[in-house]
């Protein structure tokens, strides 16, 4: 693992205006694994009756986390963009709780990176959502 690449990835994530707007916080990165948290925020509510966060905000978290995992892979791609992302929503995230996404870039070729991701709230045994994604690999 190249620590300078990891630092670049962290700076890159934290400089993203939309990640900031959603209050994303990078808690772990390296070796093709990334973990990002997103605190509960009333602006992100999708169902005003229950206060449950909108699926779209979870999508944004999963997408960012997947991209971060690709960027932190030891093969060190120069850049990445999402090709496709599929998310399964297993249950509503509990209102008031932080959502944590963890993505693993489990395979990478010269052109494509393959990612699996999971999102949980404080009940880490029961995932809120899982995702699989494919990302581009930009060569240096």
């Amino acid at each position, binding site marked *: 693992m190249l620590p300078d690449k990891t630092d670049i990835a962290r700076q890159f994530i934290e400089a993203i205006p939309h990640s900031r707007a959603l209050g994303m916080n990078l808690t772990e990165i390296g070796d093709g694994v990334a973990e990002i948290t997103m605190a509960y925020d009333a602006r992100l*509510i*999708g169902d005003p009756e229950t206060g449950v966060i909108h699926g779209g*905000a979870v999508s944004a978290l999963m997408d960012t986390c997947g991209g971060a995992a690709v960027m932190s892979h030891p093969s060190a791609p120069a850049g990445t963009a999402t090709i496709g992302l599929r998310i399964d929503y297993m249950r509503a995230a509990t209102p008031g709780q932080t959502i944590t996404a963890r993505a693993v870039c489990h395979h990478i070729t010269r052109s494509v990176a393959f990612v699996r991701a999971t999102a949980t709230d404080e009940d880490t045994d029961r995932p809120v959502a899982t995702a699989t994604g494919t990302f581009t690999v930009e060569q240096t």
Partner: protein
Amino acid sequence: MDRRPPEPVQVVKQRRDTALHALVGGVPYVQFLGIRFERRGDELTAVLPYDNKLIGNPLLPAIHGGVTAAFLEVTSIITLSWAWLWSDIESGALNLVDLEAGKLPRLPKTIDFSTDYLRTGLPRDAYARARVTRSGRRYAFVHAAAWQDNHDRPIAECSAHFLMPPQ
């Protein structure tokens, strides 16, 4: 044969626009992204005005992939809910006073959501329309596409499944 006179056009429009406004305005996340909906009869077009907080890649710059996915998901849920509520809006069975007071009917829940990123989202306004391919008693199937300058050059498409609220 019993034939009612047609309703005045402004009454019809007001009822539909009030229902749509309540449906869209009641969701904080839709307001957070700044999404609004334009209506032609029952056809809806979602509009996402450009804003710096939507940027995902400051170097290009490009709209965040998560924003694009969220935009398609919002378009899908609102269009599906709208189609599902349409007959009750038209018949007057849906109480508009309750709706305006924020008492929304139960909305469909996303089961799964798959996005294809076709082109980079540029720093400008985006538009989207969804098509409900089947809306059953329990499950619904929706496709949506988003574009910017050219309708024929979509930036992203999605395919999604929803669990319908109990009738």
